[in-house]
């Protein structure tokens, strides 16, 4: 079986219309399960693999790296750098670490992670900011394409585009709730399409799948909605094999929704979308990782998985990423 392939912006590269999210991969039961998820995803037709330097304190990248041994050329590999306003040298250090963990000498796409604060664009483009690292890494052949991602506010994305940096790709939340509330779909997507940039949708199920649990949308409706937008791929998290199987089925049988069907889903969600109750990544810090919070002087959350892992590291178990007791 295969799933539809689409053009990655104007690069000439083709990628799968469904992408596998790196954060949830690190939430898999164990390393063997994570490797199995990656292998079955590749067999099912997924070529786009998402990751990030800070996901699960490196575990997400390490597990994906192990899973991709001997299969690196079959996939389009993305990871993200977590400078959050800090400088180019730090970005280059993170790049080397990401490459090591992912067992590869190059990334297909390297993105600025978590562009979520109003001054991120200005800190990115400043002299000695992360923009310089992106350009340098591309020049050195360590990365093929460059992009950024964020889940907070459309105006911050637009400011990133206004820096004039030659991005190849942009990632953002796209789902039926976003469609009518502080909307990336309305405010950012058309501009990216116009410029021919590759668009990577994320949070098709709004991050933690609350509207699905509450019966407001089916997984099929939500995922098909996101994939029917003018995007290159839609990243979704799959920490279990049965979730992978369900999503592969939807993607393998994918038929775009008609404009009328899209409208009807938007209408179905509109009143519940209006206060952001299902999009906590826009109005709270729940989805902001400790690296982002630290760099911007916000308090970290002791209940967050990454923070627990960070604290456990001080116990020096000898493991690179200690298991977090839940």
């Amino acid at each position: 079986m295969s799933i539809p392939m689409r053009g990655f912006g104007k690069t000439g590269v083709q990628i799968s219309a469904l992408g596998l999210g790196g954060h949830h991969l690190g939430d898999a039961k164990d390393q063997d399960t994570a490797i199995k998820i990656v292998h079955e995803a590749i067999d099912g037709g997924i070529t786009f693999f998402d990751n990030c330097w800070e996901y699960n304190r490196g575990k997400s990248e390490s597990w994906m790296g192990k899973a991709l041994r001997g299969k690196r050329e079959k996939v389009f590999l993305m990871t993200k750098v977590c400078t959050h306003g800090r400088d180019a040298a730090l970005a280059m250090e993170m790049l080397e670490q990401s490459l090591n963990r992912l067992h590869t000498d190059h990334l297909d796409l390297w993105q600025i992670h978590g562009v979520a604060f109003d001054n991120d664009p200005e800190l990115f483009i400043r002299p000695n900011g992360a923009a310089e690292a992106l350009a340098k890494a591309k020049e050195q052949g360590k990365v093929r394409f460059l992009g950024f991602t964020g889940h907070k506010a459309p105006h911050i994305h637009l400011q990133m585009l206004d820096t004039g940096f030659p991005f190849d790709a942009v990632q953002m939340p796209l789902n039926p709730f976003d469609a009518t509330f502080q909307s990336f779909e309305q405010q950012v997507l058309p501009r990216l399409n116009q410029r021919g940039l590759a668009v990577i949708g994320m949070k098709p199920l709004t991050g933690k799948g609350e509207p699905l649990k509450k019966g407001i949308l089916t997984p099929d409706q939500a995922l098909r909605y996101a994939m029917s937008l003018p995007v290159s791929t839609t990243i979704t998290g799959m920490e279990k094999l049965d979730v992978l199987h369900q999503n592969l089925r939807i993607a393998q049988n994918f038929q775009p929704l008609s404009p009328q069907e899209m409208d009807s889903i938007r209408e179905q969600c509109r009143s519940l979308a209006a206060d952001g109750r299902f999009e906590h990544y826009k109005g709270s810090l729940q989805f902001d990782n400790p690296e982002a919070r630290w760099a911007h002087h916000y308090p970290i959350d002791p209940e967050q998985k990454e923070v627990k892992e960070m604290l456990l590291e001080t116990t020096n178990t000898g493991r690179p990423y200690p298991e977090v007791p839940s």
Partner: protein
Amino acid sequence: MTESDIPGPRKIPRRDFMKGAALTGAALMGGAMTMAQNSNTQDTPSPAAAENPVPRRKMGGTGLDVSVLGIGGFHLGTPPDAAIATEIVHRALDAGVNFFDNSWEYHEGESEIRLGNALKGRRDKAIVMTKVCTHGRGKDVAMRMLEESLSRLQTDYLDFWQIHEVIYGNDPELIFAPGGVAEALLDAKKQGKVRFIGFTGHKDPSIHLRMLSHDFPFDSVQMPLNCFDATFRSFQQQVLPVANKRNMAVLGMKSLGGSGEMVTSGSILPEEGLRYAMSLPVSTTISGIDSLYVLEQNLAVARGFTPMSADEMAALRDKCRALAGDGHLEKFKTTKQYDGDIGREQHGYPPAKELPI
């Protein structure tokens, strides 16, 4: 009757609009207009008996004179000992402060109860404001809350009744829906239970502007105003000129970040923050005070208040600009930290203990 006596409910003629409009033109062109330039709100000495009393200003188009410092209601409920709250209110009144903020939902009513007790026998010396916490619900809920607030505050009228915490994207729509809380405000005013009506929120200037875009006779509006707000998602830039143009009573809040974060982080001194907020064209600056130490600190600033010059204000804004850029000293705008549980419940959000920030 002395000048400081606040009479009960009565009709206040609307003030001359043109005067306010001319002032706003200046504010729009110059960014922040300072108190020094704002003859409409020129401070006058308080008629209170105290020596060196806190100065007073005209309160928008209400005809009232209000002290430049107001006492925040939330923090009255914070000290474990209610006697501290009473002492704060009494000392504030003695110093010439006459504005007291509150809300139906602060500390499950304890803040209103404490203020009510503290004002016993001195109700007529105070401008009492409280807020209604419908958070999208209709006017029946609002009127029940009004009766509870009046009873807790031991009074038969409020000087100001405001819609609390207008912070969610769909709040304006729900407030002005048929049978919504906006109708309750008008009814309560008509019944003489409240003299003036308004709204408040700490989240987003665009939500305030949508509230003001309705053809509705708000007398007052409350918003965060501080030297960080001045350059970040700015109520000062976007909302204050509109409110001034309408000659509304503007109630500034969160002059030090909501919980003093701007001071405790070492970014500014308390007197810098308070003086900046009080130097804007506002009626009063509401300050949360939970100890006699903070009260005396803030009273000292208010008593000796002289407006900052335009240059001083600009210099402070510049000093704060870089730190203001990601909103970490204004967490009420960028996180859930300052959003109350009752509003969260009405809007389908988890409570603070599950989603603290």
